[in-house]
């Protein structure tokens, strides 16, 4: 379970895009979100605790991908995480002011398999622009 003092941040609007660097190995055709590709749900889990993401309006895809060479970028709206029962908090870091954390119902605030899958199904891989 997430820590008791974790509150969802209402200043992050529902239509805010959240970005997560994902392992490039496995992506699927996305039947739910009008085509394109999505990541496997494991890309939205972290057994150590809450899931790190970037707030899209505060950064750029190039900045996010620049911190993880060889990775791809998945995006989903904040409301997708909320509808999965997650809470979102800003967590700016010195080198990344766009950083945020998504708290789920698993151990130490991690996302459960159910929550990760709900997000994965409504996420999309941002196409690479060469």
């Amino acid at each position, binding site marked *: 379970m997430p820590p008791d003092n974790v509150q969802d941040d209402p200043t992050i609007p529902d239509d805010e895009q959240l970005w997560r*660097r994902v*392992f490039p*190995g*496995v992506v*699927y055709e996305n*039947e*739910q979100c009008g085509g394109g590709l999505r990541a*496997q*749900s*494991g*890309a939205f*889990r*972290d*057994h*150590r*605790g809450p899931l*790190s993401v970037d707030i899209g309006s505060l950064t750029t895809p190039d900045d996010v991908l620049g*911190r*993880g*060479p060889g*990775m791809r970028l998945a995006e989903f709206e904040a409301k997708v995480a909320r509808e999965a029962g997650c809470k979102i908090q800003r967590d700016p870091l010195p080198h990344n002011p766009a950083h945020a954390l998504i708290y789920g119902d698993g151990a130490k605030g*991690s996302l*459960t*398999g*159910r929550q990760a*899958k*709900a997000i994965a*199904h*409504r996420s999309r891989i941002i196409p690479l622009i060469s």
Partner: protein
Amino acid sequence: MTYAGVAVSDSDVMHATDEVFELENRSTQWSEVVSVFDLSFRKIEVLKSLLAMQSLSENWDSYGSQPPSTTAIDVGCTFVIRYLLDDDPMPRIIPVSGSGIQLAWKKQDKEITLDIFPDGRLEYVKSCGDEIIEVDEQFALDWGKIRSFLDWVR
């Protein structure tokens, strides 16, 4: 350590070369070597994917994660060797942040994921499109259950 009756000791050792690998499973109770020649090409490919995760670097996910734990990899190999038949659909495998592994099967809208936690625990999620049909957060390696879910995505 026991997974559904299969003893897996911390002394499990895997050897890999370019052409052949063997899984040696040694414990005080039993000893077994699985030769590559007893495994199908498809299962060998899955095992290679699992073993390759040992070589992931620290911070492989760019979020500071360590590679999958030895325990998680052991459980994954046990699953492939003991519970997958040669003609079963083979899983797609990815590392998960926080030293886990996820195996996934997908056929059209049907999807099964089997998460292996760093300590070897298993979590199973069955879904069809957006609908999550079944979740088992304490999944045990059980022949009947595994046959059932593999048949579902066959």
